[in-house]
């Protein structure tokens, strides 16, 4: 009797706390935004600028998030080494762009810059994909029937191995991407500042995501990937090569991440052995946000996170006179991860895990 009373009290306290948390979050967002907007400190152009950079960042998150979500969908595991695949892509791109710069090719004009970027992306994909397949083969495949926690730990191990392998090869220093003059120019639109780099990142990301979506929805192998994600044994009974579907999934995710690595590095102009860590966790957040396992969810989650991270600090916090709110963008991103996990673990588009298992 006594225990149950204490239990009931704790439960009540937790429920109250969660409610207060909801109210607090809503209050911060609503009041903060109202105060910021009314202060009139920022012009419309500033807000539009924030939306644009949020879109750019968000489409990179979306590209990476796809790899997390597809691998989760097919193996029910979080591939924590995915951020390192992204980092490998960024490194591969670095060498291509630098070589092009040294040859004096890079900055001859928009065309040579674009050719360099396309080659860098292709090389990044070609480097990132085999690394991911190797990780799958060595670190995950032998554990496919192990309890769920085991491949997760193996993934964290793989992540460290990759980070320190790159550190071993390239040292702890930061490599600066050469300046691509063309990317810094702004689009000839009056009022808003949109750089070519934003346009290129967003367009490349959307082209790749559309391609992936069509592949998964329209092709035979893509449909097989969805079938294997639902039920491996039955898929095998239909003659589907389950391993091939899994390897293809890893390959697709890695290709997206490798390309995203180059885009990210073009945007932030640097790469080093830990480059994959933060964007990796952010993209994981995006995948959870959209509903892990759900492909459109990952895209949506990425774009949403990009916006919240870009506009959020200024819009929510500036009104409260928080000093340099932009430093708090990671706080906002990860607070959101916690809130989603607490209040809606199935994400925006996700179904309840229990239902999808039925």
């Amino acid at each position: 009797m006594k225990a149950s009373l204490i239990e009931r009290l704790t439960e009540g306290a937790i429920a109250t706390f969660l409610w207060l948390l909801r109210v607090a979050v809503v209050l911060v967002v609503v009041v903060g935004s109202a105060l910021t907007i009314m202060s009139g400190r920022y012009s419309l152009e500033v807000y539009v600028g924030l939306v644009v950079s949020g879109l750019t960042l968000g489409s990179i998150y979306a590209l990476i998030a796809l790899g997390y979500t597809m691998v989760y969908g097919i193996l029910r595991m979080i591939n924590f080494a995915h951020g390192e695949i992204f980092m490998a892509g960024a490194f591969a791109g670095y060498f291509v762009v630098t070589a092009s710069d040294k040859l004096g090719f890079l900055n001859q004009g928009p065309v040579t810059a674009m050719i360099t970027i396309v080659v860098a992306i292709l090389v990044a994909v070609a480097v990132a994909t085999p690394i991911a397949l190797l990780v799958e083969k060595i670190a995950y495949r032998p554990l496919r029937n192990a309890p769920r926690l085991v491949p997760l730990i193996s993934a964290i191990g793989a992540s460290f191995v990759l980070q320190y392998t790159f550190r071993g090869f390239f040292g702890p220093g930061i490599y600066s991407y050469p300046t691509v003059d063309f990317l810094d120019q702004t689009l000839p639109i009056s009022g808003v500042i949109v750089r070519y780099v934003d346009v290129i990142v967003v367009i490349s990301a959307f082209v790749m995501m559309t391609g992936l979506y069509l592949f998964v929805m329209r092709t035979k192998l893509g449909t097989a990937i969805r079938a294997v994600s639902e039920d491996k044994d039955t898929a095998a009974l239909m003659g589907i090569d389950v391993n091939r579907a899994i390897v293809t999934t890893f390959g697709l995710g890695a290709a997206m991440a490798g390309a995203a690595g180059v885009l990210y590095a073009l945007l932030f102009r640097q790469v080093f052995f830990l480059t994959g860590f933060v964007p990796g966790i952010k993209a994981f957040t995006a995948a959870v946000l959209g509903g892990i396992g759900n492909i459109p969810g990952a895209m949506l989650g990425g774009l949403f996170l990009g916006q919240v991270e870009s506009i959020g600090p200024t819009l929510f916090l500036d009104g409260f006179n928080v000093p340099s709110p932009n430093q708090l963008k990671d706080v906002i991103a990860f607070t959101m991860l916690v809130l989603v996990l607490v209040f809606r673990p199935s994400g925006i588009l996700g179904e309840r895990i229990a239902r999808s298992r039925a």
Partner: protein
Amino acid sequence: MNPTPILEVDDIHVYYGNIHALKGVSLTINKGEIVTLIGANGAGKTTTLNAISGLVPSREGQVRLRGETISGVASHLIVGRGIVQVPEGRRMFARLTVEENLRMGGYTLTRAADVQAGIDRAFEMFPRLKERRTQVAGTLSGGEQQMLAIGRALMAGPEVLLLDEPSMGLAPVLVDFVFDTISRLHAEGTTILLVEQNARMALQIADRGYVIETGMIVLSDLAANLRENDTVRKAYLGIV
């Protein structure tokens, strides 16, 4: 007429960890026959089918198709050799459409025309599926799901069809429909191994039957004889 065995299960032993689920099961299925495997819950019927399909490994013994051993061959390759299983509980790809489910059944087919012919045939057998071709399979009724499960398995054009409790959970009309379908497939030349709890119906359409108890075959005879067998009548037909 000399019967030619098409599928032979030869003294297989299957373990789940320490559980000895099959203790030397042997079956022979001749070309064009319907053979039924009956037994109580947990007797090892599903395990037997899964051992044939290569989903569970057998520690001892062999499975042979047309005299060639297929033990150790990966499940997805066994489909290509001509054995397809309709698993227990229908096992739809719930988020795929009806048509996509059928296409997955035809995964081993390489020619688009063969896939289309298979889909047309499934829709001809089960017109209900045609009306629902773009609907996701998870929203189908139990009966429709069973039709889809059978239609999907037929896509690969199996020589031997393994059916695991196809009448489970269906209303009597639908049970009849499923058994009619099985008879039709038999008439068209498909060899069938039918696992059933509904022993009465199974023994009516089967040529021969095996009775399995706790991982061992305890009886095997012509279906007509099993129908008259006292043990079978008591244990599986509910006749005292």
